[in-house]
């Protein structure tokens, strides 16, 4: 099978998820002490940067099955938005507030966007782009 040249979406997404998971572990490992948010913010910014780089690299791919990508990603987004919403509910229920709540909420946003992007990419990379399908049918 000849593999198409595609950006390293999976590797970047896993690195991004690793950073927000590390930030979450750092904050939860120090409860109930008020620790510096700087390490968690640095990890969050790094994770967000990787998300934006991933989306930018993906947007530049030519002849990609975007219809398939969005079809799969939108349903994954719904599922992960529900999961992220439940985790957010648990944070608020436990009276988490201030900077820690902001960092963890933004981490959940990255999680809820990056995982569906990855799922959509993994499916679409093996799908035939709509334009190619139309050309083949013609």
């Amino acid at each position: 099978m000849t593999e198409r040249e595609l950006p390293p979406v999976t590797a970047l997404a896993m690195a991004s998820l690793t950073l927000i998971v590390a930030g979450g572990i750092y904050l939860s490992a120090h409860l109930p002490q008020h620790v510096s948010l700087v390490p968690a913010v640095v990890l969050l910014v790094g994770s967000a940067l990787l998300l934006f780089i991933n989306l930018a690299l993906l947007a530049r791919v030519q002849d990609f099955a975007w219809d398939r990508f969005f079809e799969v990603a939108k349903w994954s987004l719904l599922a992960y938005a529900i999961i992220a919403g439940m985790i957010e509910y648990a944070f608020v229920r436990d009276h988490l507030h201030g900077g820690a709540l902001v960092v963890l909420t933004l981490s959940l946003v990255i999680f809820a966007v990056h995982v569906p992007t990855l799922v959509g990419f993994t499916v679409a990379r093996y799908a035939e782009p709509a334009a190619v399908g139309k050309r083949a049918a013609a």
Partner: protein
Amino acid sequence: MAGVATTAPGVKPHTEAPPHPIQIPEFEIVPRRGLPIVAVALVLLIVAIAVNKLWPLEFFHVAGGAAWTIIDLFLGLILGPIMGRLSVPARIEFTTRLMPKMLLIMPTVVTMTLAAGWQLSTKLGTNLTSYPNHGWVVASFIVVGVMSVLALGLLEPANIAVLCELKKPRPNPEVIERLMKRFIYCAGILGAMQVATLVIMTKLASG
């Protein structure tokens, strides 16, 4: 697999008739009949967290955790190697029956275990730095974190991509082979990591 011809090793193919294409059973990528069960489980989980009583939280954490650990161990260390040795038609039939169910079961049991577990530890104070076994609790966060990244980044996308490939009129066997390998290796690593979870959780339970 539609349009893909295979023969068992050591068996001479019949020359007079073309080999039968592999049949793919009809299946749903996400089994819709299971969605109400998932919805009920998640609503009960929210109620358990909201009422914040010991028994419902213990139930969701222990029942969800047991299911998660057992499924990962069984899939990674028993079923995974068996799947790897099955013939292509048998593997495809098994995959189309197992993987859609996994797509609903795993996110549900993982969410149940982690959400109820966090609320339980908040209620009991076991996630505080003052807890004597705090190091073990942090170790469990790290193990769960690594498992989550592997499951979300590699396992689940591979699972969905295999099912989408099998839904095509002419699936590509190389794509399925590659994604199934990723799934089986990942399940093996997660199974091994569940042994670490068992060590940590039994240590925490025994004080």
